[in-house]
């Protein structure tokens, strides 16, 4: 069946951003799939290390941190430190990779977007989806380490899609916000990198909460990423549900940021496209 581009265009309708944009995106799901697959195959097929590169990168980071913080500083955690550390690194890597690649996706696709009509959000969403796929692949070494270290794999692992999808919404929304700003100013992406690093340090990936002086705890509790990490660690190795407020923060920020991102982006697209 031939599905040709949306068969009705009325520029006035574009003023109802959310409804028309989302309906529009559905028509381009084939393109979304194609872009995600292309992103992954380019990364895996065309480099010698291929899929191992995705696995190697967080493992190397983990090894360095494990030597420094596990052996020199001797951080105490309830589970073996390696499991605590790697789970944190993986989630924060997913976050930062996705926000940066979704944030740069619009500028990078400007040659297409300024010539052919495609809902521009498709490029941001496909970047976020590719990062999610990478995250899933990089879970494999974590699960192996859990087995080797005797932590095991709890049944709650089947609930992983919940934090995974919430994170996808968060990074897609943030990515769209960054992407709109990046069209105006090209240093926005560098700045975003720095901010993401800051958020990463405010997330207890490599240190236990017990070493944080009480007066600084609000900084960590105030970081939404902490809630995502609590839920993720609960499901992936602890086998427990994180406290209810973590779920509220996670789902709440995911929905708010996604809606905000799509809304701001579609509202400003008119001004962005003439700058591409």
């Amino acid at each position, binding site marked *: 069946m031939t599905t040709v581009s949306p068969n009705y265009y009325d520029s006035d309708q574009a003023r109802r951003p959310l409804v028309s944009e989302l309906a529009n995106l559905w028509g381009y799901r*084939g393109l979304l799939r194609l872009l995600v697959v292309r992103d992954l195959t380019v990364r895996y097929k065309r480099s010698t290390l291929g899929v191992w590169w995705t696995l190697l990168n967080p493992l190397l980071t983990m090894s360095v941190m494990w030597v420094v913080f596990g052996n020199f500083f001797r951080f105490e955690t309830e589970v073996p430190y390696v499991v605590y550390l790697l789970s944190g690194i993986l989630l924060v890597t997913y976050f930062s990779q996705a926000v940066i690649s979704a944030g740069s996706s619009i500028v990078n696709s400007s040659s297409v977007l300024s010539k052919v009509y495609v809902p521009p959000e498709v490029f941001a969403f496909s970047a976020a989806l590719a990062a999610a796929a990478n995250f899933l692949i990089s879970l494999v070494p974590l699960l192996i380490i859990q087995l080797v270290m005797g932590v095991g794999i709890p049944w709650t692992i089947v609930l992983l899609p919940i934090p995974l999808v919430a994170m996808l919404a968060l990074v897609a929304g943030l990515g769209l916000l960054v992407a709109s700003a990046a069209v105006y100013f090209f240093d926005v992406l560098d700045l975003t990198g720095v901010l993401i690093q800051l958020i990463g340090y405010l997330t207890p990936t490599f240190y236990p909460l017990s070493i944080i002086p009480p007066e600084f705890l609000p900084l960590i509790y105030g970081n939404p990423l902490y809630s995502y990490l609590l839920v993720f660690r609960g499901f992936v190795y602890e086998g427990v549900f994180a406290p209810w407020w973590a779920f509220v923060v996670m789902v709440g920020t995911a929905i708010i940021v996604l809606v905000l991102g799509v809304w701001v982006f579609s509202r400003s697209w008119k001004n962005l496209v003439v700058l591409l």
Partner: protein
Amino acid sequence: MSGPNPVEVQDASLAYRLSHNRAGTLKEFAIRLVKRQVQYERLWAVKGVSFSVPRGEVFSIIGPNGAGKSTLMKMIARVLPPTAGRIVVRGSVSPMIELGAGFNPELTGYENIVLYGTLLGRDPSYMRGRAPAIAEWAELTDFLDVPIRSYSSGMLARLGFAVATDVKPEVLLVDEVLSVGDEAFQRTSKLRIEEMIADGTSVVFVSHNLGTVKEVASRVMWLDHGVAKMVGKPAEVVKAYQGSV
């Protein structure tokens, strides 16, 4: 020849925002904001243009370079949303404005057929099925598995044309592409467009070749500095335009 017009442009305008001393970075912008040096000037590339194209009509846009012809085409193609006014397009659109926009030089001819077709809003699985026929029509069957960075510009243009016209659209936007390829290809591509027109496809056609315009267009618009100076019968508009140059 009934029903609403496939293309309707109502008082449409498009402004590019030029900022003097455009701040490329956020840092610079912040400094200028503090110094109160942020100024924008609007450049109207298209201003208050209205026209409609009925089914099966060839509507041609002429005018000097920088008149806003390509901008107007991109507005109809939905790439540029109008700053003011309204544009309605009923039915599918094949934009032959920048043929092969979205081609990736590292991917093979086959992969590019699928990618470009999908960017044009078609289904990837449908494009996979059509790829051999598209390649055959573009006379590129032997090069289907070669990355297109080794294609010549003529081959690229043929491939772009073949993908864009593979599906019969309700509206065809043509920006001077009739002049791609060698003579044999020009003939076949012209034939394909004529078939579509006979079948009811509406065409918006931008050209500098006034001879072709007089020959193929049903109506002509003369665009100058973003403003429609004259709309009417090809012979009259072309004559007035030639008189002004």
